[in-house]
C-alpha cells in the first residue's frame, strides 16, 4: 500500500513511517498540516492517508472534508490524541475509515491498514 502520513510532529511522522515500513508498506509522502495533506494527496494519489487532527494552518477534520469532497473514494484514517465521542463521530460521518487514538502501537496500526488489503 502507498501511504501518505500527516502529522505536525516530525517525531510522530518518523514513528508512523517506521511502523508502516516494517509491516511492508511504502510511505510515499509526509505532510505536516492539513493544507499540505490536501496538496500531497492530489499530487501522490496514495492508497491510504493517516491524518492527525490538531495541526496548525488547517486541522485534520477540515482536510478530511476537503479531500473527500474531490475524492470520495479516499481512504483516510484519523490518528489523534483527541478521542472525544463528538470528534470521532464527526470524523466517521465525514468519511474517515478508522480513528486511532494516540499513543498507538504497531498492532493497532497494522489492524487499521489490513482492512484495506
Amino acid at each position, binding site marked *: 500500500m502507498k501511504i501518505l502520513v500527516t502529522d505536525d*510532529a516530525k*517525531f510522530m511522522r518518523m514513528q508512523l513511517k517506521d511502523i508502516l515500513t516494517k509491516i511492508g508498506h511504502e510511505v510515499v509522502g509526509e505532510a505536516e498540516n492539513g493544507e499540505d495533506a490536501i496538496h500531497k494527496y492530489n499530487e501522490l494519489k496514495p492508497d491510504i492517508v493517516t491524518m492527525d487532527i*490538531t495541526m496548525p494552518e488547517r486541522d485534520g477534520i477540515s482536510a478530511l472534508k476537503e479531500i473527500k469532497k474531490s475524492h470520495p473514494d479516499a481512504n483516510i484514517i484519523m490518528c489523534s*490524541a483527541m478521542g*472525544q465521542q463528538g470528534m470521532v463521530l464527526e470524523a466517521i460521518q465525514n468519511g474517515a475509515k478508522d480513528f486511532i*487514538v*494516540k*499513543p498507538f502501537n504497531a498492532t493497532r496500526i497494522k489492524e487499521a491498514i489490513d482492512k484495506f488489503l
Partner: protein
Amino acid sequence: MSETIIAEKQNVIIKESINGMISSIKSVIPANLSFNPPVLIQKDYHQSDLGVIIGITGDFSGQILIEGEETAFNSIAQVMYGMELEGEMLESFVGELGNQISGHMVTTLSQNSFSLNISPPTVIVGKSKYTAFKNAIKLSVEVDNNRFNILFMTAKEM
C-alpha cells in the same frame, strides 16, 4: 450566569482538569510515576531546559505548560518508545507529548460534559520566564528519578 456561578464553574473545571491530567499522564506514560500535591503559583515562573505550551479553549480558557530538564523527557521517550532522542527529534517528541497528554485530558473531561479544545503545541527550548498569567496550578511528576512539571495557567482569578 452571575459572576459567582461562573467562578465556581471555573474552579470545578480546574479541579476536574487536574484529576483528568493525572489520569491522562498515567495512560500516556507507561512508567512508575509519582505525583506531588498541586501548588498554586501567583508569580513569574521559570522553565528549565525544555517545555511545551498548549492553549485550552471552551469551558475553560488558559494554557498548559509541560516543562522539565532534557533528561526527564529522555526518560519518558525511553519508556514510551524505547529510544534516546536528541536535538530536533527530542523537541518534536516534547511537542507531541504535550499534545497527547492534553488531548487525553480533554477527552476524559468530555465524559463529564465539559467541552474543551486544544491548540497545536508550541515547543520552547531553553530557560524561559512566563509572566502572562494571573494564577497557575503546578503539578510535579517524578519519573525514573527525574522530575517534570505541568502548569495550568489562567488569566482568571481562582
